[in-house]
């Protein structure tokens, strides 16, 4: 192993761990909140099962507002909320809050779009069977859109990794921040290159896994 990696090995391992925590939490937020929010956006669209202009515009504007913030300022804006939730506004745990919020907005938008590509007939079949809205989504629409939802999540995760690199602002750490701090600010170019390599490998693995899973589950 190259000297520079040996020299910084504990820091690097810690940074990798921090990235996993931040991105992992974002993924959880994206799935637990972003997926339902995106589903609501889809459902309340005109001519969709829960058509509702007001609710649609509310959710739509909410997502837009979150996505409008320069990410740095979103982090700053979240500080009071972060403090409320995790008790502190600095450190890896604290970084999770703004990351999770942007993750939710980001994935919700892609979910909405994936669901809009589901053929009308699938929804009609569900409605004809008397499926509730919940059943229409879980038993029909999600099933039909599953490979698309997985590809969207994959794309989102890669974006989350990218967002996490900015979390150095509030001491979030992570590989990206490590690369920026040591490699870029302190001109340890070789160290920076190794960190970027780690990120490339990470992204490549996630993308390959996502593409593979999506392709396997796509029976259309």
């Amino acid at each position, binding site marked *: 192993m190259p000297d520079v990696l040996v020299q910084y090995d504990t820091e690097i391992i810690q940074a990798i761990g921090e990235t996993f925590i931040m991105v992992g939490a974002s993924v959880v937020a994206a799935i637990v909140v972003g997926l339902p929010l995106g589903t609501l956006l889809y459902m309340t669209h005109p001519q969709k099962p829960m058509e509702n202009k007001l609710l649609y515009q509310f959710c739509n504007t909410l997502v837009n507002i979150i996505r409008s913030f320069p990410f740095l300022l979103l982090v700053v804006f979240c*500080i009071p909320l972060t*403090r409320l939730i995790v008790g*502190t*506004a*600095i450190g890896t745990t604290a970084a999770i809050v703004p990351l999770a919020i942007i993750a939710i907005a980001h994935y919700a938008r892609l979910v909405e779009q994936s669901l809009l590509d589901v053929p009308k007939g699938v929804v009609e079949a569900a409605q004809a069977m008397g499926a509730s809205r919940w059943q229409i989504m879980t038993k029909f629409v999600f099933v039909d859109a599953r490979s698309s939802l997985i590809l969207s999540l994959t794309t989102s995760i890669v974006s989350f990794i990218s967002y996490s690199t900015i979390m*150095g*602002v509030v*001491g979030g750490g992570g590989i990206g921040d490590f690369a920026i*701090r040591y490699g870029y600010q*302190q001109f340890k170019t070789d160290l920076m290159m190794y960190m970027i390599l780690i990120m490339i490998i990470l992204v490549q693995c996630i993308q390959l896994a996502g593409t593979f899973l999506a392709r396997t589950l796509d029976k259309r």
Partner: protein
Amino acid sequence: GDEEATTNDKATTEEATTLKVASLIPPMTEILELVEPQLEADGIDLEIVVLGDNVQPNTALAADEVDANFFQHKPYMEEFNRNNDANLVPIEEIYFANYGVYAKNAASIEELPEGATIAIANDISNVDRSLALLAQHNVITLGEKTDVYYTEADVIDNPKNFVFKTVDLLMLARMYDDADAVVMTPAYAAPLGLTPKSDALLTEGIDNDFAITLVAREDNQDDAAIQALAEAMTSEEVRQFLEENYDETAIPAF
């Protein structure tokens, strides 16, 4: 110059306390690392919180998230206090980051061509500082200070029509190739192999307000742990470290 560390009544701390100090980059972080063992001997567990932004260390300090920070000069801190109703107080000036003007293709400021591009940092206190440095050496003339800071609008005389390009602090060093001249701190010049002593066309020297200072809050400024930290940071060991590793770049201010 600023007040010296005041006399301390309580000389000892009985139990181990944790002291969180926010900082940004070397040599700031290195100084903190250097004093860590000494504080540990005093029963103080020093935790260095590295942040990546010029505002958050103050925000965190004001919000009691950290006990002190070490990254800024006094004017910057005062500006923060003014705007955020904060009560940050300077504890101890540690070193002068000797601001300087560097140019790749000019050996002196006179050699810079008419209309040359000068890259300066894009945050307002550093814009002020960069312009002040140039004014200090009569390269430009600044008018009355209308606001807290000088901005480009305050340049009333610019005989050689220099063009100022503002870029991120972190980007300054990279502009060495691009701009005709760069105004930056030694910390950013060092990786390019540039030192204020031998390469800068102009330097700020030490006769200014811009010493990098240990900062705490009004309510904890007298804490034994803070005082112990201030003391450790002004030790001979630190002075020696700075003189050996940052000659002319970080000039001890104590």
